[in-house]
């Protein structure tokens, strides 16, 4: 709303006054200054923890604590840069091996499970959405209610009951437990369905599609939803925590938590683990921001 009213107010003021240094212009300059200061403060508030994490992962353990007091730029910026923390947790250095650290495996598990869910969910959700948008079936409306009502099932509050089911099916402690519950999503089916409905049916019946409309589906629906799905699965903690007991099947989010419950906590390694657990999604987000925001708004507003 700010922009509209601002431009309108500006238009109504005679230009001649604006050229001279008037109290109004000084106020305006001050306003700009305050605005940019505000931007800087907000950015710092949201970014400092990440900067602290990333730079902290690149310094020696003792150095992290050495410069805490008084607070200065050395509190955050390393004196001596090192990759040792990463080599340790990935099990590539002798110390890491001695500790039995194996983050390569956990990273692989997280990536495998996330890609698995995204692929399955692309297939099954597209089929489901196509069914609702295009195919004939008696009482489709009831089925749609059945699908949409699952959006109301709260997530974290049903993890323990879900575990009872997975255990009864004997799927716990396997990759299946991490993939199978999420291969279909009411949110994705719903947003894809709306998109299929927008493409005129005659187009695909006459088989004259130049690919444009399906490319549109890909760009506007599938990529955003796949991104959200990937992030959702990659970031899961509670479910893998209870569903997986075997250490070698554990995902990165649980692995970094386990690190912090040991008797001696290494801050450098904890930082490095946090970087590995968060950087993939942060990079994906920064690279594909437009699609990402689209996905959030789509599932947020339409769903």
């Amino acid at each position, binding site marked *: 709303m700010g922009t509209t009213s601002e431009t*309108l107010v500006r238009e109504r003021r005679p230009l001649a006054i604006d050229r001279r240094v008037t109290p109004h212009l000084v106020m305006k300059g001050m306003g700009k200054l305050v605005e940019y200061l505000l931007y800087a403060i907000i950015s710092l508030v949201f970014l400092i923890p990440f900067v602290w994490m990333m730079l902290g992962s690149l310094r020696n353990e003792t150095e992290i*604590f050495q410069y805490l007091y*008084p607070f200065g730029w050395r509190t955050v910026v390393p004196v001596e840069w090192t990759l040792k923390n990463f080599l340790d947790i990935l099990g590539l250095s002798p110390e890491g091996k001695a500790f039995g650290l194996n983050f390569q495996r956990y990273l692989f598990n997280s990536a495998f499970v996330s890609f698995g869910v995204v692929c399955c969910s692309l297939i099954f959700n597209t*089929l489901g959405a196509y069914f609702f948008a295009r195919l004939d*079936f008696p009482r489709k409306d009831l089925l749609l209610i059945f699908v949409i009502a*699952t959006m109301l099932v709260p997530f974290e*509050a049903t993890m323990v009951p879900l575990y009872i089911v997975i255990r009864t099916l004997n799927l716990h402690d396997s990759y299946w437990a991490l993939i*199978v519950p999420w291969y279909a999503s009411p949110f994705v089916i719903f947003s894809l369905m709306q998109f299929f409905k927008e493409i005129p049916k005659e187009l695909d019946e006459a088989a004259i599609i130049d690919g444009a409309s399906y490319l549109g589906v890909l760009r506007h629906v599938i990529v955003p939803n796949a991104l959200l799905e990937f992030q959702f699965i990659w970031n899961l903690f509670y479910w893998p925590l209870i569903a997986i007991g075997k250490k070698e099947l554990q995902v990165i989010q*649980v692995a970094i938590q386990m690190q912090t419950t040991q008797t001696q906590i290494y801050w450098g390694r904890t930082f490095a683990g946090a970087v590995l657990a968060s950087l993939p999604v942060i990079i994906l987000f920064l690279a594909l921001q437009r699609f990402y925001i689209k996905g959030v708004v789509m599932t947020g*507003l339409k769903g």
Partner: protein
Amino acid sequence: MSGVTVATKPVGLWQRMGQRRTRNYLIAFLFILPALINFTVFRYLPILAAMQASLWQYSLLGGFGDFVGLQHYVNMLDDPLFWKSLQVTGTFVILKVPIQIVLSLALAILLQGEKWVAGFVRSAIFTPVVTSIMVISILWSMMYHSQLGLINSMLSGFGISRQAFLSDPNRALPAVTLMMIWKDMGFSMIILMAGLKGIPDTYYEAAIVDGANRWQAFWHITLPLLQRVLMFVVVTQTIFSFQVFVPVYTMTRGGPIDATKVIVYYIYQYGFLFQDMGYASALSMVTLALLLVVSVIQMRLFRTEVEY
């Protein structure tokens, strides 16, 4: 089917049509079947399983024991920790949701522009949203650390002595709440921003012609027209926040002296640490019912007739 075709070839066509239609239905059903199985087994069945388990003595190691009927639910009434966990969860939601929504609405209005600076700040605010709640919890518990934390280091720059955050029963819950506001703010900001974009410019132009200032325009145009989106954000954030688990699990383990024992953590404790799945299931059922009631009430409260 037009009557004419039916009349010319009555029996044969009807049969063939019937068969073809059944076959088409069958094929169509195969499209939706995988999704239906998923929702039945992994969304609805858990609720039924919890309902069943809540009526029995049931532990993961021992399996089903005696049938206890509604005993778990009766016990819940006398369980001070259950009430405490409800109170803690409620406090968390009531603290978090309003502050988060007000701040994110302010940010949405401030950062609406197309300028690259605004875009940069938006990305900064959104970074915690995409980052896992586990990473955020670990980072913030390190920042809150009473001796080695970044926050205490910064406070020392202002001459403020070291503070305990997570180990102080009065501060632990506000500290977790602050972190969660910080994490979720970008999400509500983006949704509200999309809502703001949906308000036609002509409304503001008309208001300015009528001599309204920006504040008046906000109260009389933005807020009423944003009501539906605001309602959506409030309801979803309330439901999300009600189920907070990971920060409590990682940062405080429900402590100190149960100051952060939220309901989902209490359920986890009963099911997996105390090995009492029956009681944990009963707690889950009550939480589900509460969430349903809360969201229905909220939808009623915020219902709006304004359409644009």
